[in-house]
């Protein structure tokens, strides 16, 4: 129970109709609200509006041009009975999981190596980061060439005398997705390495000292102490990587064109092919709606945990 000094503070409230009136809610923070208009418009008109538009038209039989002729779930039925879509999904899953794991693991390993107070850190970091400056188109082209069995690595190794050397992922339907992966990892690891490096730099020096005093080997410290501490950094990385993976398109087009035999198709390419190649917007919209749905299924819980949850703590 509080004991405020009754004699001093228990003065009755001033009469109503106080001089300064409580201003209207809408007008408070007005500048901020005005400044946020672009964001609000983008969020509502583009991200929500366009998405809804797409979802609505996915129930129509739009061909080359959007057309409000509803056909129920036909587009979705066809989507899920199209082998190419199924292959795309499967490819995205394989690529996505591998890329996420590899990018995180490699990014972390490289960051950890660079964090060991080494000489030439700047040089190594720049080398690892520079591919991120290049577009996926360039990445795809270069790696297409490097992996071309007649010109690239296979040819070079064979010409060195190892005749039976076989490294030809781009023309092997079972391996082509890994050929893409090599290029994708090359392009994207740098950024996650950079983020992880920043994260590692943020770890309290004393933690390292404590584990050294206890005689814990470096690798164990990384595994049991540092990595668990870097959870938020991993989450940031994951979001960036995941948003890139979903959009995987340019790389495929440039590197394999979906081949050989459609074995490296991905959903975004399916969408593009349907919308522009087949001039069947409805089908493309259905496919993109499915992509969105899966993103939302993955993201909503995450967004809730990261942003919604934090606010309440």
């Amino acid at each position, binding site marked *: 129970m509080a004991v405020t000094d009754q004699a001093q503070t228990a003065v009755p409230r001033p009469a109503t109709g106080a001089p300064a009136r409580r201003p209207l809610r809408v007008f408070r923070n007005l500048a901020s609200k005005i*400044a946020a208009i672009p*964001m609000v418009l983008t*969020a509502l008109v583009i*991200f929500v509006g366009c998405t809804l538009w797409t979802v609505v038209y996915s129930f129509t039989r739009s061909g080359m041009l959007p057309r409000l002729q509803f056909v129920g779930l036909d587009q979705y039925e066809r989507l899920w009975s199209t082998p190419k879509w199924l292959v795309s999904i499967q490819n995205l899953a394989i690529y996505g999981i591998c890329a996420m794991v590899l990018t995180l693991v490699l990014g972390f390993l490289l960051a950890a190596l660079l964090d060991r107070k080494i000489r030439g850190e700047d040089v190594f970091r720049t080398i*690892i980061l*520079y591919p991120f400056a290049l577009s996926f188109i360039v990445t795809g082209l270069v790696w297409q060439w490097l992996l071309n069995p007649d010109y690239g690595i296979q040819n070079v190794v064979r010409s060195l005398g190892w005749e039976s050397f076989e490294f030809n992922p781009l023309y092997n339907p079972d391996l082509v997705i890994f050929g893409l992966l090599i290029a994708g990892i090359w392009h994207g690891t740098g950024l996650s390495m950079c983020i992880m490096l920043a994260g590692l730099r943020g770890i309290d020096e004393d933690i390292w000292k404590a584990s050294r005093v206890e005689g814990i080997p470096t690798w164990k410290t990384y595994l049991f102490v540092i990595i668990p501490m870097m959870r938020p950094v991993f989450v940031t990385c994951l979001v960036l990587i995941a948003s890139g993976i979903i959009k995987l398109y340019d790389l495929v087009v440039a590197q394999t064109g979906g081949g050989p035999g459609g074995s490296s198709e991905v959903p975004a390419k399916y969408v593009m092919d349907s919308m522009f190649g087949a001039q069947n*917007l409805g089908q493309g919209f259905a496919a993109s709606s499915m992509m969105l749905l899966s993103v939302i299924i993955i993201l909503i819980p995450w967004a809730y945990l990261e942003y919604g949850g934090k606010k309440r703590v």
Partner: protein
Amino acid sequence: MSNPADLASIAAIDAVKTRTGGVGLLEGPRGARPRRAFSRSNIFIYGTLILVSVYYLLPLWVMVMTSLKGMPEIRTGNIFAPPMEITFEPWVKAWAEACTGINCDGLSRGFWNSVFILVPSVLISIAVASVNGYALANWKFKGSEVFFTILILGAFIPYQVMIYPIAILLGKIGLFGSLWGLVLVHTIFGMPILTLLFRNYFTSVPQELFKAARVDGAGFWGIFFRIMLPMSLPIFVVAVILQVTGIWNDFLFGVIYSNNERYPMTVQLNNIVNSVQGVKEYNVNMAATLLTGLVPLVIYFASGKLFVRGIAAGAVKG
């Protein structure tokens, strides 16, 4: 060492030394532990890094080497071998002679277009995103977090999904095909990640600074321009780098939402690379690719440390 105070303190130390029993060194190790330059851990660390560097540099090496070779050498030779005869012809061809349809002026035409697209797009997208991030970090209002979440979700939507609706929207507001339409598109698609970065950065700026400025009577814009902006160099560096590379490398929006006179360099690059006749002219393609990638590459090579620092400030504190 003529400072008497120094002498005094040395005398003091000597006195202390005798008191504490400074009796000199004993047998055995002293000083720093001697280090072998080729300790196992060093071999592992540098070995791995060098191996990884090879993987990362290989494509660049091949691109540069190929772009300096003549076609006959490419057909017969090893792609990794340095050119026996260096020729800059592919570069010249890529820059000034390669044909697109009936225009044969190579990439040069696209370069300035790219610059004209790049500058306003980068400026405006960063300006808008930084103000958004600032509003979200310091001037939260009801629903601001909701919009932010939508924005972040938006980062996951494949661009292709929005090509048509945005084309229709731009057509409706009469910006289709104009430079400003393109700027608008870049601003929209750059917004999620940039806003996230800026929001995180401004959140990490001490709140007290912001409060002090409010007490000093600065308003929304006053605080932004006078207090926040001068402090935000690292995050602006990151934003500029991300946007410059993103916008410079963009093909899809550049080709769809601008028109013929304004096609960026990437469109020319695509035209050169995809205009095949017989054997691909790999050397020209590589030269063209390198020329196109030059701007972002230079920016990356020049700003390495700032980038890491900015990332640390903007991404990690998320």
